[in-house]
């Protein structure tokens, strides 16, 4: 008689469970290098092909790619659900704008401030993880983003509906970011650094601890992993990178407004992750690009982002919960398998 282990619930949707084996340092380094090369290579292609308006759109794509990658880390690797990640995007954006306007801090340093502010916010909101988890925590994060949106109207320094304008990207490492192409390269570098950091964390010991908490919290606890602190760490890391993305948003738009805290922003980032495929590292990147592209296509039709975001999410959930990356993967496997089968039968 064989006893089969109970399979984790989230097996097919989320990145594979920790199998107790870390990738070797060299394998991870190679993959990190591949991420950098792919990001910068892609950036070069786009810089060559795109005009200055579409370069601005691409900068937004990069912002949402980083944002979605941070959320994918939170959902996929840590299994912590937040429906209020707009809170960290907005906090990062406002913090970057404030240090830029009032203290003249610009470039990557301003992004760091944005990231740290968002991480600090995540520590505060994340304390709720002591009491709630799962969907209940998702609602707590939703409440947090609503509070912040209201604060932008109540705190005079945040200028209410007008938001903060006059943000300057400034200069990075002595290079003035004053034309669209330089700003584009700057954004691409930020994305590359962010992706490298997220991938490194995800393949590290911490990343594997998070996966085991995600798959079986009781089992993870029994191996000495603190469940609450693991989730909190993941939430803060995701918050930091979400904040950096928000800072970058402020820098490429040169302004930041309360809409960044809107509930629909939290929703659209979830859609990006799902459309791309939660299970894959490239999923949110594909999803972000696909979403912004689709939004540009229907921009003339309607400004009803809620409806389209909701429908997109509903369709993905009901039809292809593993997203574009998952569908591609399945098609690819079917093709490869078919060819192998053919090869085998030809050989006979």
């Amino acid at each position: 008689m064989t006893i089969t282990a109970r399979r984790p619930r989230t097996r097919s949707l989320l990145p594979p469970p920790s199998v107790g084996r870390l990738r070797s340092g060299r394998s991870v380094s190679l993959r990190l290098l591949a991420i950098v090369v792919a990001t910068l290579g892609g950036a070069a292609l786009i810089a060559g092909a795109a005009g200055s308006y579409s370069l601005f759109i691409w900068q937004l794509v990069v912002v949402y790619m980083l944002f979605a990658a941070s959320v994918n880390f939170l959902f996929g690797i840590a299994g912590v659900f937040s429906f209020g990640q707009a809170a960290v995007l907005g906090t990062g954006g406002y913090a970057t704008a404030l240090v830029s306007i009032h203290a003249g801090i610009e470039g990557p340093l301003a992004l760091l401030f944005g990231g740290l502010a968002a991480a600090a916010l995540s520590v505060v909101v994340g304390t709720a993880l002591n009491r709630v988890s799962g969907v209940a925590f998702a609602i707590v994060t939703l409440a947090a983003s609503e509070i912040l949106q209201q604060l932008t109207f109540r705190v005079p320094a945040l200028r209410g509906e007008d938001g903060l304008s006059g943000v300057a990207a400034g200069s990075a490492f002595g290079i003035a970011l004053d034309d669209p192409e330089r700003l584009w390269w700057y954004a691409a570098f930020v994305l590359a650094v962010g992706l490298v950091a997220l991938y490194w964390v995800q393949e590290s010991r911490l990343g594997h601890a998070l996966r085991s908490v995600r798959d079986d919290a009781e089992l993870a606890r029994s191996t000495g992993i603190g469940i609450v602190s693991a989730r909190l760490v993941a939430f803060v890391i995701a918050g930091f990178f979400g904040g950096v993305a928000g800072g970058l948003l402020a820098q490429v738009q040169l302004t930041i407004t309360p809409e960044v805290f809107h509930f629909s922003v939290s929703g659209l980032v979830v859609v990006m992750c799902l459309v791309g495929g939660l299970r894959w590292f490239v999923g949110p990147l594909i999803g972000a690009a696909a979403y912004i592209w689709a939004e540009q296509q229907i921009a003339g039709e309607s400004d009803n982002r809620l409806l389209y975001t909701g429908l997109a999410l509903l369709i993905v959930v009901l039809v292809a919960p593993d997203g574009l990356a998952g569908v591609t993967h399945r098609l690819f496997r079917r093709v490869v398998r078919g060819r192998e089968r053919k090869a085998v039968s030809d050989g006979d």
Partner: protein
Amino acid sequence: MIEFIGALVSGALTAVPIFLVASGLTVVYGALGVLNFAHGAVFMVGAFLTVQFLGGAAVAWTTYLVVVLATAVACALLAVVVELVAFRRLYRKEHLLGLLASFALLFVLQGAAQRIWGLAPRTQPAPRELSGSVDVAGVVVSEYALATATMSAVVGAVLWLLLRRSAVGKQLQAVADDREMAEAVGIRADRVGMFAFAVSGFLAGAAGAMLAPQGAIDVGLSERYLILGFAIIILGGVGSLRGALFGALGLGVLVSMLSSYAPTLVGFGTFVGLAAGLLLRRRAIVQEAT
């Protein structure tokens, strides 16, 4: 002192209708283990439908009562559709999908409302006869608040009887306890689930219709009342009607006290309540619930 009692009374009166919102969440959560994000949107649809039916005119209270019932039934149907479209297919799949589907439906319903009714907030006056206020032992209370509290209390009592005394209520409890076992003894869990959604939609719709005159009606109602319902559940304890009642009373009084004594915090009452609920509870409240 009179101000204190006034705040207490008006808080308790507002608590009764919002109890309906929270108990709708509780019924579905208790029976199916789903915290339905779309619940807040159903409430919002209820408020909009009321304006739609009445055209924003002040009407007689009997007409208003009929509209409340019609809205509640319409919202019950909407909730059943929500269940059929999204949840029915997902019970046996990964829990994450149900969660995401209800989140998606919140957006879809909000977006649809935005398309149908636009972004400009609507208003709905209270019924003609109930627009004044009465003086009860020195405390001034709005007649309409008194009427909605009474009406909601009746609905709440019927709900309690339905869940405790009726056959279908018993079946609901059985499914909540152990879905597989309930199915094994012949309870059709799918139908019971649909019933739970219908009840929750009815409650949200009735509350939305009754609370329509309380303020501006816009798309944002859905997430505000979702968070409100959730804060009540956290304050009062998950999964029981009694918890929802005490949570609603606590939150209603808290909000009303804040508006009397800490006007700068008006608009943050729900969040204060949520934070208080999280701090007061000793243990994890909702375990791994999706």
